[in-house]
């Protein structure tokens, strides 16, 4: 399963190294900046070992994210610090269940205000407050570009659960960012 020729090695580097920054960005959201470097390096080693099983032309980013999440689950999850002890139900209750069943539109206009920009720590903060399996769904699908089927296997959950986690996570993120905007005086709740 290990590349054995310089061509394989060159092919591996050409295919995977351009994705290093994206992997690192996601790794930071999984294990924190202190351990992200080790997680990414371990991901590359595992990917190199199994590169013969990677089908050229398929989604390399999704493949690498799958490997990284697998290592995260097996090696890091147990000892990674959980930034929140709130369950998804508690978070939803905190944000108010009615939002945004009606009202995506008005909030959406506020959130799109260029003055907000969203380059600060708010998006990260909202992401970190999500329970890990919900954050994982977002990272795998929205950043890693895994299909629902691939993400549900990586998360070891049924497709319907993945679908539900994605929706609830996005809704909560939206709600958290809207609350932040309101705190700054943009719009009214």
């Amino acid at each position: 399963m290990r590349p054995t020729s310089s061509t394989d090695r060159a092919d591996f580097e050409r295919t995977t190294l351009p994705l290093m920054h994206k992997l690192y960005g996601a790794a930071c959201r999984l294990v924190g900046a202190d351990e992200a470097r080790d997680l990414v390096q371990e991901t590359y080693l595992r990917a190199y070992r199994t590169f013969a099983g990677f089908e050229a032309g398929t989604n390399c980013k999704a493949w690498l994210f799958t490997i990284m999440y697998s290592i995260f689950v097996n090696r890091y999850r147990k000892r990674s610090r959980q930034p929140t002890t709130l369950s998804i139900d508690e978070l939803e209750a905190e944000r108010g269940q009615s939002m945004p069943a009606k009202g995506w539109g008005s909030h959406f206009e506020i959130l799109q205000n260029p003055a907000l920009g969203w380059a600060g720590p708010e998006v990260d903060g909202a992401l970190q407050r999500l329970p890990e399996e919900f954050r994982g769904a977002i990272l795998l699908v929205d950043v890693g570009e895994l299909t629902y089927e691939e993400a549900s296997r990586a998360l070891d959950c049924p497709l319907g659960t993945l679908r539900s986690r994605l929706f609830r996570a996005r809704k909560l993120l939206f709600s958290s960012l809207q609350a932040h905007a309101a705190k700054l005086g943009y719009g009214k709740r």
Partner: protein
Amino acid sequence: MAVDEQHPREAIQDLVDGRIDASTRSEVESHLSGCEQCRDELEGLRWVKRVVAERVEEQRAPEGLRASILTALDESDAAAVARERPRYRPLRLALAFGIPLLLIAVAAWQYALRPADLPSLVAGDYGDFKTLVVELASRTDDGAELESYFRRQGIEFETRVFDLGMMGYGLLGGRAHELAGDPSAAFAYRGPDGQYLLCQMFRGHPEQLPEAAEVREHNGIRFHIYHKDGVTLAFWKEGSVICVLASDIDPEELIQLAFAKAMIPADQRSEVS
């Protein structure tokens, strides 16, 4: 999560994630044209998806990470080469490059000669197969067909694909794989509650295995039990072949499955395993 049946929430999310077929898209778009609430929801979901992806992807890895990765790959290559040619590689390198490199080569040689940690490798394979990092090359629920596949792939020993139907485990398929540089036959099962089970068979001896967490005997067969990263592994010998079952199910259930399927080859029934 409350679902409003009047609004195609699931289809809207599918639209956001680009997983909708043309006919459904047409239906959803028709609904969207007359429903402001769903249009807002669509845009809201799209906005969250985009903002999160942009925020994560704009982060840069620290300087030096690329170099660390390449160094790790170099070390991996060196170890692989040393494993393949441990007898003459150190001498050749020493002759070509002198004493300092000879010392390095000797170190690599010693590294290569250390026993491979088979339980850790199989536990790693378990994770790779379960999460589809490594795909099953032959997908079939027919054990005989899979055994035939292994023969066609050049697996030189007799494989025995277990029928675990009585235990509720369905065969998913298999792959002619590699374990510590040697060919292995790997095949996977899915349990009634979605549990994943991996079996591997390869030529070997129990002496290759490190000290086990537990050794049990059942029907004259010795089982070497390991626990690695939440995965339980049960190794046993069948003739010249080592079999291993691996899963993250309850350890005792895994051991009982191994007990149920292990057997002594007919021509060695008088031997003690």
